[in-house]
């Protein structure tokens, strides 16, 4: 009897929410078709792909397609580069985005606030090819701003930037920060605005300074959002922004030791070979590792604070 009633209630609930489920349907259908249906195609990474036989008809190759990612010295270099860059990006971009978001939230002038928001968002929308030429305009040996104007002013000898790998971690981290801070701070800004003003009023009545207010009210309350975004970023730790690492160093071989990541290595190595199995193997490798890392970090976060974890 009770079961029948609760079933009826659930059914009523579903019917009353029917329009909402219907709205969800196109999105779900797209998600299913675009993201889940192609999943069986992952086997191409474990096969010796032959276009005539198709994906499912080609012969099995076991883990042969993965060996090139681990065999040579280069393999260690690209893995190291990818992980270290991503760790730096996560830490630096998050810190910068939070700082900018806090500053923006404290801005009183509305017009200035809106203008600044749009202005810092702009770099994110520029294509990496254009960014690479912006950087080239600064770092070019013959006509660049740095070599011809800035360094002589400071009394330092000009360098051939595109031939010295050691400066590029800094250059790339800087360019990536310049590009992402506007986009990333939007979410933090939205969270900060959502914090109840009463906390701040209570704090200022109690005599807290701005810095103390930020440290004890703002930061703790945005921790959930920061955790969530960081966990998601960890899931992509083996991926890299191809445009950033291929275009901005102008595809210069001399810089490979510090700018070659898994994505660019695979692209360069396989461009002449058209080997679909091997390139898919790289993608599978990146996804599986990312998946394991997300699950792992999520578990760790759960131990600390159940609410902050993703799932």
């Amino acid at each position, binding site marked *: 009897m009770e079961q029948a009633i609760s079933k009826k209630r659930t059914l009523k609930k579903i019917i009353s929410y029917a329009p909402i489920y219907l709205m969800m349907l196109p999105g779900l259908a797209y998600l299913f078709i675009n993201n889940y249906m192609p999943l069986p195609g992952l086997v191409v990474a474990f096969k010796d*792909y*032959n*276009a*005539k*036989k198709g994906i499912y008809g080609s012969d099995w190759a076991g883990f042969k397609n993965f*060996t*090139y990612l681990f*065999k*040579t*010295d*280069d393999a260690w270099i690209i893995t190291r580069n990818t992980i270290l860059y991503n760790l730096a990006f996560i830490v630096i971009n998050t810190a910068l985005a939070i700082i900018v978001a806090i500053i923006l939230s404290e801005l009183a002038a509305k017009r200035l606030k809106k203008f600044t928001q749009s202005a810092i968002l702009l770099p994110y929308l520029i294509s990496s090819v254009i960014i690479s030429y912006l950087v*080239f305009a600064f770092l*070019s*040996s*013959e*006509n660049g701003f740095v070599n011809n104007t800035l360094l002589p002013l400071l009394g330092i000898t000009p360098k*051939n930037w*595109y*031939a010295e790998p050691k400066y590029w971690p800094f250059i790339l981290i800087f360019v990536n920060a310049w590009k992402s801070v506007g986009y990333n701070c939007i979410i933090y800004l939205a969270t900060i605005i959502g914090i109840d003003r009463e906390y701040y009023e209570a704090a200022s009545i109690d005599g807290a300074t701005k810095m103390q207010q930020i440290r004890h009210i703002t930061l703790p309350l945005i921790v959930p959002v920061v955790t969530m975004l960081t966990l998601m970023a960890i899931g992509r730790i083996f991926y890299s922004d191809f445009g950033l690492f291929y275009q901005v160093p*102008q595809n*210069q*071989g*001399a810089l*490979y*030791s510090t700018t*070659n990541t898994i994505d660019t*290595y*695979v692209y*360069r*190595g*396989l461009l*002449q*070979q*058209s*080997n*679909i199995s*091997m390139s898919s193997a790289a993608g599978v490798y990146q996804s599986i590792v990312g998946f394991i890392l997300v699950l792992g970090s999520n578990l760790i976060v759960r131990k600390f604070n159940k609410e902050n974890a993703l799932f």
Partner: protein
Amino acid sequence: MKRKIFVLMLACVMVLGLLAGCSSDSGSSSSSGGNESSSDGGGSGDSGEEPGEIAKLVVAFATFVGAPADTLAIQEAMNEISREKIGVEVELLITDYASYKQQMTLMLTGNEPLDIMNTLGGLYVTSIQNGQLKDLEEDGLLETYGQGIIDAIGQEYIDACRVGGVLYGLPNNRDMAQGRGCAAIRTDLLEETGYEFQNGGEIEKISLEELNNIYAAIHELHPELEIYRPVVGSMGQFSNVDQLGGNPYGVLMDYGATLDVVNLFETDYYMEYCQRIHDYYNKGYISPDAATDSTAVTELVKAGTLASYTTGGKPGIKAQETNLCGYDMTIVQTLGDYIASSSVAGFPWTVPENNNDSVAAMKFLNLIYTDADMMNLISWGIEGQHYVINDEGFADFPEGVDATTSGYIHSMGWMFPNQFITHVWAGNDADLWDQIKTFNKEANKSAALGFAFDSTKVSTEYTAVVNVYEEYQKSIEYGLTDPTVAIPEMNERLKSAGMEIIINEKIEQLNQWAIDMGKA
């Protein structure tokens, strides 16, 4: 009330705009400079068994300028002929060279309509490895419908395109040989140095030392100019090396006189070449931006900042480079003429597996290899509109039209099936095609002519080696670093990346090929 009407109208306009965007385009090839393939329009035809049924084919090739403005008109003109003669209609799918390989790879794997494909850009061997090209001799296809092709090219060159004994593509009639060690130099600068011109053919044959002296003289007179700009292919063109299989990992030296495969980067030639370029760099002939700047050398000469660059020699090269650069160029040559193993099969015309009607495809190929009207249309454009025949019988621009205003110009005449039956463009010799035939005949021929390398067994090593070579290539071959230090370093890393494995595989495949062809 007003607001409601306004909102309603806005919604209607947006919906109409959406629907307008959904209409299919006319199904022609992309507009100038575009690189999207048309999804509607010409697909692969039916089996053509019913007489009177027109088979539709998609013919794809690349140019360095994308699809010219008047492509559709040319296509129509060609279709008028092909419809009548063989009952076939074509759609010209012209793509910019920079994205051609990716575009074709996508179309091949996506099984899109693609019936005839030119393989410029290294597509030939990779498509064969992926099983994406048809065997052109299956069921006697070439024999039955392609006799004209065999007559036009000759069996020897056709055989040079075989891979594993199977014929997957057809070579075209062009300069197979290449004058090695050639450089194009601005004539006015050359004259300033007091150089004495030989009164021989169009190419000046000089020694390497004389070239160095010329560069030194120009640099003295014009220290503000960039004297020489190396490009990625410069080292290959300025050598007598045969890059087996189109890559520099395991080569034949000395015009491919013997089938002895060596590691190019450990040879004296490579060290000497790099030292010479490093010397140029130290003397200031080469700009430090040479590695990062990707502007075409001809554009730099046109802009007046560059004096010379490497090129491949052939009959008609002087007119070609002068046309591209806007300045009169002199071509000097320091090495001999040479047909490398992979030059015949450089970019064959193929029929991908996507095609559903091999008979129609072969008929069309036969037509375009033999019909002068078709070749003239696709090479030069429509007579009267894009070119006229002048009094001396050459093709030239019509009144008021030049290289920048013509609606159909691409300078890719050498890529099409049979250049030898087209008009000769003004500025060349009247017997240009005969000159080229002689040029081909008299050049050094590599012993490995026709050999193709299959890299699937050594994919892992190949991937690693490519990454290492690309890391060092520009700094060494553009003279930016000291070769005595950098070359041994690169060789160490190449070895640990698996260079020896690739070379051994090449030796094995070459020996097998020699046995198959009865040359062992």
